[in-house]
């Protein structure tokens, strides 16, 4: 097939089908016999068309493909925009611009820039590099470099029909991914990677190599902290040490350090006073700024776990209300702290780990970021700590916690599962296209968060301006939020358009909330998410909203100055809603959570009831007895449903006619324990609980049950960061200092992204266990290792490591070895030169081959027309019909097959002219003689020219003699003819449908002639025309002989003469048949 591919730009997927072409000779033989009734021209045409049909069919079955070969070149530039080469961005842009200045018109240029992530900035396209200087978007996350991702993206973006080349501009300091693996893939794809090394060298630099603190410490101990600082030059600096966020007091003399070139190690001892997690941070300030180029690498962090009872934390939005619980717990000797959300600070997992249990007392979900909620869940399930949620207007479903990670770890769902008629809420989201990058993406994400946040008993609808169908539409019709997955899928499919006017969508929402599906909702709320540049609604509409008590909150989405907030402020103010200016996408989840929870007010029940203790023997309440009058009354609660799990225990409930609502529920979830108390003890709901004598004992028991059980296994642990990998090493020895082998270590690692991922320990020596994990983010990595020996829990090891800054900030020079390696693997060039000399677009790569399936085109535009022509040639009555058929087919193939109808006007006109030309050529039979010439040429070759003519003449003479003999014996002839009456009549009938010489010689008549079909033949006219034709033939034969004798005359005349001679015998035969028929008729 390769020979075929070189000769023709075609290839075949399954060439075995081409063996079908062997049928062509068989077909020729069979067809010549079956089409013997046709005149030679038609016969040759028909045979040719049938052979063509077989050939085309074979091609289609073989999966014919068009092959396009060209030496066009696509070069994708990879621009390193990480921190280490920030100062070289202009150089890189200039390199691209200069390299692409004088390239071929068909060569294409693409650009990808990268740091932690790779972004396509210019699709590979003709016309060079068009981004103006300094117009590249600001790069995010420059603290890491992932060259491999950029190479991967480039390979995906190459067009398939050009030669390919990657030009990598980088310092080679790749700190995520595996560049060598990607380079090998590029080589496999035949893509060379040329390297433009970015050169720099920081000669004056001071940075922290590491800070080492013991993993475990005891209260009262002096913890030794070791700091390793690297300096390029001799320098002096000051060290500040922070212990648990507070500056450690050291004298100015002690804080001063003198640094020698190379590594410098310093020690300090810090006193440990409290239990829990101890964090340490060291900040280095170099006296002479010129000695330190990069500031981000002057900080180091570490932490230790200090044994001892960790306190319990009460998070409350109102300290005065929860002081009663605080005092009660202290009276029961529970170590407890109380903080408002403002006092929590960053509240990372590491800080949460200072506490053994956390109580959320009427705190709304919006108080915490998504990340904090995720870490709270990890705090419970992976770190084995406790979490208690107390009821209140901002708790459970009413506080916007539905669908949050906290709901997952709690023993109750925040939805109402059983049938109960409660007032519904209705929430309508109005989505407006935002003219900022990823604005619509964030809009959709927040809409989905709303779907999660509100209950399935509430109404939810989404309105947006969309294009299909055009206009304002209910993308999610207002209905019960039961099928959340389906609603989110619809939101994902939304194509948010550029809404001209808030008025129309607000009018639609108003109508649906007041007289449509949402009319029975007790709480009606609308959220508009917009960049604010749509037209404001009318004042009347806003007044209608206010009258109907439908609040509208507006969220201006835009991270820059592009927010038209005044209209949004007006809408919110006049309808009793709130306005938010979200300048950062991270703010959006909290805003949406808060706003969506407005419709959840109906989940709060504010009526007095006496809770029933239905299971006093539960371990949580062991020893507690409900007094004779039962538990004290409560004045309200938040409705929830106990989870359908055997682990969930619900000892206290509120009994109603509809069933039992959990008041107190608890369970152990993975390693941690959680409790839900859906009511409150403050005066509004728990007036009788505060004076209850067992109040303190009750809460102390509940809290103690949830507290993290510390059972540390006293094994040595060691953590280290090596390149992109972190490593945890555990040495397991028993009290006799014997190695503990074959232990089962199960661990979850919580990375700085708040993702808990399992890590696997491998025993690499006697009692020596190691686990590795990727370190691609800066921050704290915490691991909670559960150790089992033959299925028995031996204890827990908590460990971790701190990555204060990215290795990006530690790179002092390029990694040329890696870059050389990449160029060598892929066959790329080392372009350490000016762009004009680099010749990035040199066409020294093998030409590309692009294959496209062509069988469908062949089938539609060659096979089908050929088939129609085949039928036309055999069936249509005369050349006029054939010519029109050919004309139509040619026109259809040209216009539709070649897609000329979408071409320029002269293309269409040309197609029509060409079709007409072919049609008229056939009509005037200009092409007929050519076929005759070909036919007779072939015959002459087969019969060796003159010899065949002589043989023909002999045959003619013999036939003439035979005819003369037969004419002389009419009676015997009549008898013979009588015997063949039936077969002859069949032949006559067949000829009526044939397009033989009779009709060919006849001038075009009517449509019946043109399109064929049966037609009666008048015997008398046939007789007279036969006489005329015989006379004409004789004249032609004489003329032809004369021409042959003189060897003169035009080709046309010679062809006609040949034709006349060759068909003489056949026509004589037909005329004899006619005579015989006449004779027979007369005889009868």
């Amino acid at each position: 097939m390769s020979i075929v591919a070189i000769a023709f730009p075609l290839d075949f997927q399954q060439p075995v089908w081409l063996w079908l072409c062997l049928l062509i000779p068989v077909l020729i033989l069979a067809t010549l016999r079956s089409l013997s009734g046709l005149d030679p021209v038609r016969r040759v045409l028909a045979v040719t068309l049938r052979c063509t049909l077989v050939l085309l069919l074979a091609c289609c079955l073989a999966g014919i493909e068009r092959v396009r070969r060209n030496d066009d070149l696509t070069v994708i530039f990879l621009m390193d925009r990480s921190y280490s080469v920030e100062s070289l961005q202009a150089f890189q842009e200039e390199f691209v611009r200069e390299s692409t200045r004088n390239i071929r018109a068909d060569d294409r240029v693409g650009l990808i820039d990268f740091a932690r992530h790779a972004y396509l900035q210019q699709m590979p396209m003709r016309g060079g590099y068009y981004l103006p200087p300094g117009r590249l978007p600001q790069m995010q996350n420059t603290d890491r470099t992932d060259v491999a991702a950029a190479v991967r993206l480039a390979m995906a973006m190459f067009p398939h029909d050009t030669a390919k080349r990657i030009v990598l501009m980088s310092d080679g300091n790749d700190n995520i991914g595996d560049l060598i693996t990607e380079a090998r893939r590029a080589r496999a794809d035949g893509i060379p990677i040329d390297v433009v090394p970015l050169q720099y060298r920081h000669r004056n630099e001071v940075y922290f190599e590491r800070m080492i603190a013991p993993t475990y410490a005891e209260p009262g101990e002096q913890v030794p902290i070791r700091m390793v600082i690297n300096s390029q030059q001799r320098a002096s600096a000051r060290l500040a040490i922070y212990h648990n966020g507070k500056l450690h007091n050291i004298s100015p003399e002690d804080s001063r350090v003198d640094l020698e070139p190379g590594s410098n190690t310093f020690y300090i001892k810090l006193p440990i006073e409290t239990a829990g997690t101890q964090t340490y941070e060291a900040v280095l300030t170099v006296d002479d700024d010129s000695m330190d180029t990069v500031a981000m690498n002057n900080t180091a962090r570490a932490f230790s776990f200090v044994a001892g009872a960790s306190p319990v934390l009460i998070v409350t939005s109102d300290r005065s209300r929860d002081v009663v619980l605080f005092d009660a717990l202290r009276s029961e000797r529970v170590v407890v702290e109380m903080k408002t959300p403002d006092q929590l600070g960053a509240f990372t997992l590491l800080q949460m780990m200072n506490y053994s249990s956390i109580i959320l007392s009427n705190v709304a979900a919006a108080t915490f970021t998504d990340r904090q909620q995720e870490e709270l869940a990890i705090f419970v399930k992976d770190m084995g700590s406790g979490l208690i949620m107390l009821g209140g207007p901002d708790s459970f479903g009413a506080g916007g916690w539905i669908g949050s990670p906290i709901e997952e770890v709690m023993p109750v769902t925040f939805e109402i599962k059983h049938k109960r008629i409660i007032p519904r809420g209705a929430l309508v989201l109005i989505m407006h296209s935002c003219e900022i990058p990823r604005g619509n993406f964030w809009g959709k994400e927040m809409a989905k968060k709303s779907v999660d946040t509100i209950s399935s008993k509430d109404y939810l609808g989404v309105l947006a301006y969309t294009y299909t169908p055009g206009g304002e539409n209910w993308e999610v019709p207002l209905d019960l939020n039961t099928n959340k997955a389906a609603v989110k899928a619809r939101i994902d499919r939304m194509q948010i358009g550029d809404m001209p006017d808030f008025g129309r969508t607000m009018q639609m929402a108003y109508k649906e909330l007041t007289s449509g599906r949402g009319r029975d909702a007790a709480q009606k709320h609308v959220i508009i998410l917009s960049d604010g540049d749509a037209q404001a609604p009318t004042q009347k509409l806003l007044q209608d909203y206010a009258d109907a008590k439908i609040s509208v909150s507006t969220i201006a989405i835009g991270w820059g100055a592009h927010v038209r907030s005044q209209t949004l402020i007006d809408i919110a103010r006049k309808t009793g809603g709130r306005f938010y200016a979200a300048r950062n996408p991270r703010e959006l989840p909290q805003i949406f959570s808060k706003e969506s929870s407005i419709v959840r007010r109906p989940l709060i029940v504010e009526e007095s009831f006496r809770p029933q203790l239905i299971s006093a023997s539960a371990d949580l309440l062991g020893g507690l007895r409900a007094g004779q009058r039962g538990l004290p009354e409560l004045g309200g609660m938040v409705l929830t449903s106990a989870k359908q799990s055997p682990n969930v225990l619900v000892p206290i409930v509120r009994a109603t006619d509809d069933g039992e609502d959990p008041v107190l529920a608890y369970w152990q979830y993975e390693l941690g324990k959680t409790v839900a108390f859906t009511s409150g003890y403050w005066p509004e709901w728990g007036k009788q609980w505060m004076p209850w004598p067992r109040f303190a004992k009750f809460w102390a028991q509940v809290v103690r049950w949830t507290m993290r059980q510390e059972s540390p296994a006293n094994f040595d642990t060691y953590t280290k960061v090596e390149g992109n990998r972190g490593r945890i090493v555990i040495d397991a020895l028993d009290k006799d200092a014997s190695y503990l082998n074959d232990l089962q270590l199960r661990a979850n690692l919580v990375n700085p992204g708040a993702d808990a991922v399992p890590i696997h320990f491998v025993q690499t020596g006697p009692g020596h266990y190691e686990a590795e994990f990727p370190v691609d983010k800066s921050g704290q990595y915490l691991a909670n290792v559960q150790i089992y020996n033959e299925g028995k829990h031996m204890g827990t090891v908590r460990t971790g490591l701190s990555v204060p800054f990215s290795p990006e900030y530690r790179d002092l020079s390029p990694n040329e070895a890696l870059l050389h390696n990449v160029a060598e693997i892929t066959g790329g060039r080392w372009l350490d030169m000016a762009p004009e000399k680099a010749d990035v677009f040199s066409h020294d790569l093998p030409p590309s081959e692009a294959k496209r399936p062509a069988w469908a085109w062949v089938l539609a535009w060659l096979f089908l027309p050929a088939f129609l022509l085949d039928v036309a040639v055999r069936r249509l009555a005369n050349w006029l019909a054939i010519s029109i058929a050919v004309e139509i087919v040619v026109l259809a193939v040209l216009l539709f097959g070649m897609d000329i109808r979408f071409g320029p006007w002269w293309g269409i006109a040309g197609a029509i002219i060409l079709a007409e030309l072919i049609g008229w050529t056939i009509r005037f039979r200009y092409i007929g003689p050519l076929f005759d010439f070909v036919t007779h040429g072939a015959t002459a070759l087969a019969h060796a020219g003159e010899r065949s003519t002589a043989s023909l003449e002999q045959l003619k003479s013999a036939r003439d003699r035979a005819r003369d003999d037969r004419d002389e014996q009419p009676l015997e002839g009549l008898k013979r003819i009588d015997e063949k009456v039936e077969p002859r009549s069949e032949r006559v009938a067949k000829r009526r449908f044939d397009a033989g010489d009779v009709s060919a010689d006849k001038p075009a008549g009517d449509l019946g002639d043109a399109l064929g079909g049966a037609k009666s033949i008048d015997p008398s006219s046939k007789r007279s025309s036969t006489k005329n034709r015989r006379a004409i033939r004789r004249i032609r034969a004489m003329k032809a002989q004369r021409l042959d004798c003189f060897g003169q005359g035009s080709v046309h005349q010679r062809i006609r003469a040949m034709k006349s001679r060759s068909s003489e015998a056949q026509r004589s035969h037909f005329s004899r048949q006619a005579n015989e028929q006449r004779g027979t008729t007369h005889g009868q």
Partner: protein
Amino acid sequence: MRWAGVFTILSAAVSVFLACEPPALTPNGVVGVFGDVGLGPGSFSYPRAIAAEPNGSVFVIDKNGRIQRFDENGLFETFWRMPQTEQGKPVGLSIHPDGRIFVADTHYHRVTIFDRSGTLLDSFGREGTGDGEFLLPTDVAFDASGVIYVSEYQGNDRITKWSPDLQFIEAIGDGEIDGSRLRRPAAIEIDAEGTLWIADACNHRIVRLSLDGELLTTFGHFGTGPGELRYPYDLSISPDQTIMVCEYEGNRLQWFSKDGRSLRRWGRGGRRPGELFAPWGATYGPKGRVYIVDSLNSRIQIVRP
């Protein structure tokens, strides 16, 4: 032969029909289509405004903040960028009789002036609701005396007049007009009689004012029938002084007589040539052709109406 003759005549008629420009080679009279989705020369990322020189080039501005210049057949000539685009991109583009390009730099609340090769010449206006201030300007028009008219929306919803030396003169159209204030005047045009035509988009109507702000005519209301409008985002005065209105949501052009009679309509929603997808603008260009900004198809369609 008779049928051959008939067929030939038919073919010839078809070829003449197709070769002549009017209802051309593709359905509905589209003479040409240029542009595709992309960031390269000749490609568009959601084009939103167009202006054409009477016998010269066509200028298109897209949501990438680029102004591209094409010849009358859609052949790319040059492009330049708006000086600032972080806050948003322009939606209005007009050509002064002296050849300067006036861009309603919508999200920067100003009008920016270029020469035809993209050199920044001047700009006027600042954010605000007072005299000489704009809120989201949408379009620019010029009268015979050189006075500049600028439409704006979202709060201001008015037309301001500026002297040829870019000094504020007055605001018109800021009161009630036929029972309703202007709501997003998306486009303005001044006809040969010296009257101002306004595409009052969110009221789904066309307003005709004298240059002093006196109401002359209003017509149109929301709907899809003849004479009804769905967000008229642009209008243009045809050579025979009829009003061509481009309906953003209606996906069509509609021609009106000056007394508001709907004369004819062209286009429907879709992706194929002759169909429109959220068109933001249309203008008369060289040889009486109409150039339509087929925004969501990221292309320009040339129509011989």
